[in-house]
């Protein structure tokens, strides 16, 4: 997503139109990022909305508008992680195992498999994968967003890809052949 630095500055100066534009422009990215992390539409919508509200509230504290994309990514990721934690706690309380159950009527089975396999990865592997392959961030940027060294991120990415491929192969024999 390209966020206008001018909009960030104008929103910080109190321009309500710029504020609106900024949040609306962020919405697709926030939602997709949350979907990739949570693997569920309703939870992703809630988390993306939480993130936008949080971004709007903290915008005044952002010193360098150039860093807005990475800064906002961190907030979206944190909102999605919080939502995932809440969901896991809720499932635990109800005595059910945490299991991702994507409910996307518009998706093909293959795409559902991908979202389910992604959601089943532990968060420390899933989040770097999503930031790399959905958001297109570098290992250094992911490290900055998650507070980890770039080398650690590279290790997590490699391990995450291996686990994701294995999980997909378990779900889909065609995939095993395709990527073997």
């Amino acid at each position, binding site marked *: 997503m390209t966020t206008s630095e001018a909009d960030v500055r104008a929103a910080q100066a109190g321009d309500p139109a710029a504020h*609106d534009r900024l*949040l*609306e422009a962020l*919405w*697709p990215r926030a*939602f*997709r990022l949350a*979907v*990739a992390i949570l693997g569920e*539409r309703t939870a992703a*919508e809630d988390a993306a*909305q939480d993130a*936008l*509200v949080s971004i*709007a*509230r903290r915008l005044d504290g952002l010193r360098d508008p150039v860093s807005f994309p990475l800064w906002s990514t961190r907030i979206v990721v944190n909102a999605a992680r919080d939502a995932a934690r*809440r969901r896991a*706690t*809720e499932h635990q*309380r109800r005595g059910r195992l945490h299991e991702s159950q994507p409910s*996307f009527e*518009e*998706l*093909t089975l*293959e*795409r*559902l498999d*991908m*979202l389910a396999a*992604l959601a089943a990865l532990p968060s420390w592997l899933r989040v770097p*994968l*999503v930031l*790399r*392959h*959905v958001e297109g961030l570098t290992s250094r940027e992911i490290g900055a967003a998650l507070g980890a060294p770039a080398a650690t991120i590279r290790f997590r990415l490699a391990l995450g*890809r291996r686990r*994701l*491929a294995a999980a997909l192969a378990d779900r889909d024999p065609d995939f095993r052949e*395709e*990527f*073997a």
Partner: protein
Amino acid sequence: MTEEALAARMRDAVDAVALPPYPRPAVRARLASRAMQEPRARLLPRFAAVIASIAVVGAGASAFAGVPHDLSDKVVAALDKVGIHVKGAHVIEARTVSLDEARAKANFPVIVPANVQIRHTQLTVTPGGTTFVGLVLVYDKRSEISLDESLAESDTQRVSRDRGAYQIDSNGMIKSSPAILWTIGKTRLIMLPYDAKSRAFAERVHRETLRAARAPR
């Protein structure tokens, strides 16, 4: 496995998810509500708790207190569904006051739980003269939950954990949630926990209010 093929498949799956429209009214309503709260306050739990207490205490009534006056249309519509009909003149704002002022103005004994941190106290008086006192309590370092107190219809001491309440989000979503409702003397107390931690805390508050009520004054 090629890294690029895997990445492309991941992007493809995420991009294929239909994008919901940007929820402008909900975001605006939440920001407007937040603006009325103190800095660092967590809107949703307190907002939900206040509304839930009203839903339990005054279900069916047309006047109620403690709700920010800039309710979005969705929230008003949601309240309509649960039998609470809000009109502009009836929607009034809770006022932050000192505990002493709340005690002086309440027509019931305000019970303060022992060993619990109170962030602030809110007082609401409806046009009909009903007084509500909300103690915003801190737990788990930064989280907040409201303990709402009002005049009890009778002074029978009782506690209920299964009475239905409504948790209403700022975007108008309604979820049912069990409230903890209890009476001590002439004071009715209610809390609406929203997760496991807040529920455990609410149970502790229940015990601490009983302890406080028994303590010699």
